[in-house]
């Protein structure tokens, strides 16, 4: 089953988007960030989960865009939505009470316990090495959705032992910290990268549970900034199907 890189007819980014799309199932309410999460969610809606409910923080409930939205506030999201609401209403009436099943987030840095940094790189907040965009909706998405899925390109720079800044709380330093803080959602239960899939173990530490086609464990270790645990039941991500690839490419080509 293992394909070598040479034989692959798809990119690792495509594999990542397809693996992320597969994690979603029909009827779920999904809070979607722009970029990789939006691509994956729209792919899922176009393939196996046509009744997936997409919620965008710009104020759309149940958007059904016919192409990938260019931004979180793309007009097509409002035009195809079941309801358009104000931004305060999105956060207060729909996200905060726990009405959303899956919060789909990206990350600049992600750590061993699924904490997310999108704020600053470097130790000094006042004088950062790199100033990133910041929090946006993520802290409360991470707090209030029933589960959080993270999609991120994996490297030693992005997969770190401890994030420089906790923008969105994952499992803290593990061992039930979420419950102690009174957070209601389960936090990151799934991390999908261009190399594989990770799930938290009972302590909250991310463990490699699945390898994408053509990827070996050693490659993943090299792209991970901590001493990586590998699940004893490590499995292989099935390669993208023709339909998945074609649908993804059509989505990305449509303007």
């Amino acid at each position, binding site marked *: 089953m293992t394909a070598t890189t040479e034989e692959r007819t798809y990119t690792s980014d495509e594999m990542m988007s397809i693996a992320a799309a597969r994690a979603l199932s029909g009827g779920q309410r999904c809070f979607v960030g722009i970029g990789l999460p939006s691509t994956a969610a729209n792919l899922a809606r176009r393939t196996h989960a046509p009744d997936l409910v997409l919620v965008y923080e*710009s104020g759309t409930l149940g958007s059904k865009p016919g192409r990938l939205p260019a931004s*979180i506030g793309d007009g097509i999201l409002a035009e195809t939505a079941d309801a358009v609401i104000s*931004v305060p209403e999105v*956060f*207060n009436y729909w996200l905060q009470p726990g009405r959303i099943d899956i919060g789909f987030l990206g990350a600049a840095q992600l750590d061993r316990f699924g904490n997310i940094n999108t704020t600053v790189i470097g130790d000094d907040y006042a004088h950062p090495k790199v100033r990133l965009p910041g929090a946006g909706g993520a802290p409360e998405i991470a707090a209030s959705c029933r589960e959080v899925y993270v999609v991120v390109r994996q490297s030693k720079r992005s997969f770190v032992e401890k994030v420089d*800044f906790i*923008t969105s709380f994952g499992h803290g330093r593990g061992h039930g910290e*979420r419950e102690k803080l009174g957070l*209601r959602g389960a936090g990151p239960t799934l991390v999908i990268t261009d190399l594989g899939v990770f799930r938290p173990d009972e302590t909250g530490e991310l463990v490699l549970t699945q390898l994408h086609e053509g990827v070996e464990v050693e490659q993943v270790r090299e792209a991970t900034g901590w001493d990586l645990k590998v699940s004893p039941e490590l499995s292989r991500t099935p390669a993208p199907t023709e339909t998945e690839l074609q649908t993804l490419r059509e989505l990305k080509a449509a303007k």
Partner: protein
Amino acid sequence: MAEILPLRDAVARLVHDGDTVALEGFTHLIPHAAGQEIIRQRRKDLTLVRMTPDIVYDQLIGAGCARKLVFSWGGNPGVGSLHRFRDAVQNSWPVPLEIEEHSHAGMANRYVAGASGLPFAVLRGYTGTDLPKHTDTIKQITCPFTGEQLAAVPALNPDVSVIHAQRADRAGNVQIWGLVGVQKEAVLAAKRSLVTVEEVVDELEPVPGQLILPSWAVTAVAEAPHGAHPSYAQGYYDRDNEYYEYWDSIGRNRDSFEQWLNEKVFGMEAAK
């Protein structure tokens, strides 16, 4: 009752040096024309407030109008970084920029509190994050009924809020549709407000999903056709996605930015 003014006069009258100014519009209806008019009038020491300080604030920050930024997400949406914002934060260029950083939920609720005449808002937010360590406008509050701990954020009450809308009638009633973001809250929270519109019409024909701001809740209305570009105005024109890419090349370097500023903002002075 809102006064209908030319944009130049409206900005001159409503926006002063040192003011706290909110330009709102969540991807849709971003008041770019008003932002550039503020630059053209060389306002200084502004505290700029905005959930998503995208290109519109990259321009104001790069032009040196801002002393402080209150925000929740500072990127070029769909493209990447705001280079002028980064240059200001990382290198204090052209002037130092103080920041006050929140989440979207926090900012939205700060506007809601401001619009509601309350001094603060309560939310489930920020828990476990590093934001409260660096932002002193995030505190905790205890529910007097359940004892639960929640986050509290202070109201935002800008000196002036600026938004862009599709239409106003001659009496100054404003009509907005499509994504409405936090525009109503931003206007109602502010001491003064300016609404730029695509057009002033005799009669506001009802549109599904419309939001109406009555004239008596707005200080001034200014006609600014295409005033949201490169953002969009539903029913009028689409988002200019290529401009967002183009901005990345302009904003990336101080030289190209200053050239843009001279040509496209200050150079247009006579035209206004």
